[in-house]
């Protein structure tokens, strides 16, 4: 992109062209949380499968299928299957035996409870993963600032996220250089921890002096000024229907809670 065009891009609103992606970050968060809570409340693997299919369709629609699949599968395998396993072990008594391994009889009841639990977890994790995939952190803090959160708070949140990734990067750089000097860094957990220990303290120390200098530098950039700040990068003000969309999901959640309390599901 040439500079002219690049500069021009700040004159309008920042959009991706996809209406779902361009929803106000707070509306998106609202919908994601409501959906997540609903599928947690329902806690039924059949419902779980349905909503998860929907999550995948949405991910495909916003062209984030690859990223979503990766994070979703990680959550599913690590958290979901683990709980299935725990359920299987703890519920060995009831129900009909489906199969047995090494003398353990695993029953249909245990399997069903396990899968309910697994979808309970990914049913909630799914929309949250989708939310973070479709919403850059800076858009979220921007929306919060518009709601009155101070620029300093949003700066601290943003810079913490960035710092964690940057620290991770410098840790791996140091590990790499240690490796090239012949220090063992691969292998089991203990080998890794032993390799990491000597670099943690300098990293932590540099992070402290970094914080002080950063504070001074940002103070010099008028962060303590309390007049309303402006934004070079602006998001579209949320359209009228967005409020209704959010409200719709909130009502669905309330409805689910009511049904749950009444004992229908």
């Amino acid at each position: 992109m040439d500079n002219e065009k690049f500069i021009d891009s700040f004159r309008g609103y920042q959009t991706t062209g996809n209406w779902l992606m361009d929803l106000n970050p707070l509306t998106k968060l609202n919908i994601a949380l409501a959906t997540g809570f609903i599928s947690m409340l329902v806690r039924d693997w059949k419902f779980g499968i349905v909503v998860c299919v929907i999550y995948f369709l949405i991910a495909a629609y916003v062209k984030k299928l690859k990223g979503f699949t990766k994070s979703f599968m990680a959550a599913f395998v690590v958290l979901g299957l683990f709980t299935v396993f725990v359920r299987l072990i703890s519920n060995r008594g009831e129900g009909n035996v489906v199969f047995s391994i090494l003398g353990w009889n695993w029953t249909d009841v245990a399997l069903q409870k396990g899968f309910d639990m697994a979808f309970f977890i990914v049913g909630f994790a799914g929309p949250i993963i989708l939310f973070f995939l479709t919403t850059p952190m800076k858009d979220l803090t921007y929306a919060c600032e518009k709601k009155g959160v101070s620029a300093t708070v949003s700066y601290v949140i943003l810079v913490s996220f960035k710092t964690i990734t940057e620290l991770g990067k410098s840790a791996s750089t140091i590990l790499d250089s240690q490796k090239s000097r012949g220090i063992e860094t691969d292998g089991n957990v203990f080998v890794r921890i032993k390799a990491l220990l000597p670099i943690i303290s300098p990293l932590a120390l540099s992070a402290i002096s970094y914080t002080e200098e950063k504070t001074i530098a940002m103070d010099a950039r008028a962060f303590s000024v309390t007049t309303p700040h402006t934004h070079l990068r602006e998001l579209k003000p949320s359209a009228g229907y967005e409020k209704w969309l959010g409200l719709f999901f909130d009502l669905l959640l309330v409805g689910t809670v009511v049904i749950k309390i009444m004992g229908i599901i």
Partner: protein
Amino acid sequence: MSEYIELKNVTYNYPLTKRPSLDSVNCHFEEGKVYGIIGENASGKTTLCNLVRGLIPFFYNGELEGEVLIDGKDVREWDEAELSVKIGYVFQNPFTQISGVKDTVFEEVGIGIENLGMPKEEMIQKIIEVCRLLKIEELIQKNPLELSGGQCQRVSFASIIAMDSKIIVIDEPTSQLDPEGTKDVFEIIQLLKEAHKTIILVEHKVDLIAKYCDEVVVMSKGTVVMQGSTHEVLSSDRLFEYGAPIPQAAILGHRMTEAGKRLDRIPITNEEAVELIRKRGGNEVWQSN
């Protein structure tokens, strides 16, 4: 008012320290001049900057005695935010001065003026203007976290300059830069000088102080031991006693005096030295080799 900043008998201790980092400091800075601050390590140069910038007492607590007048008003009576806008600050480490939250240099340069609440179109024009001035136009689309030290330092100058502070405090801006980065920084200082900013510059490269500053302040062991015109201060042999850096040309001048070949005056820049030697030695000095 021409007396912009004035320190009267200022003594300051950082929290939990016994020895004061500033001890009975007296000095003054006038509007529109460029001040160089020199002195050995730990002589209190950065502390003086922190004080003038208002970081003492607002950021660092500790004990502050004496008077620090900024525009005639004591620093303690200033509004912290107002002071942070009036007095810009650029310092040593180029990388910690990058906000780390902006994706492009263009946005990074705008970070201060966003906080000042400047309307968007005005902001865009301002950023373009400053980037052009500091010759960083070709960087505007780059990720600030991927810049070299010299580029980072130019970008931090740009975000500060965009805010249009009257006074700019600059603490060792080139100590982590290579010669080319140093040259770029001093080009910027020259631009600020032409824009009649008041500049307070801590710098070890005393040859550059000789070239760019109107006045020099010398610090030693937490106090100001000399203040005067650049030539007067840098040509003084008292600098040896204070452990302050001395220009090559001045050392040459002092040596010639010791050797009984006194020049008209002690030079502080190489050009001046050449001129004085030429005058003193007549032609044979130059023709013999």
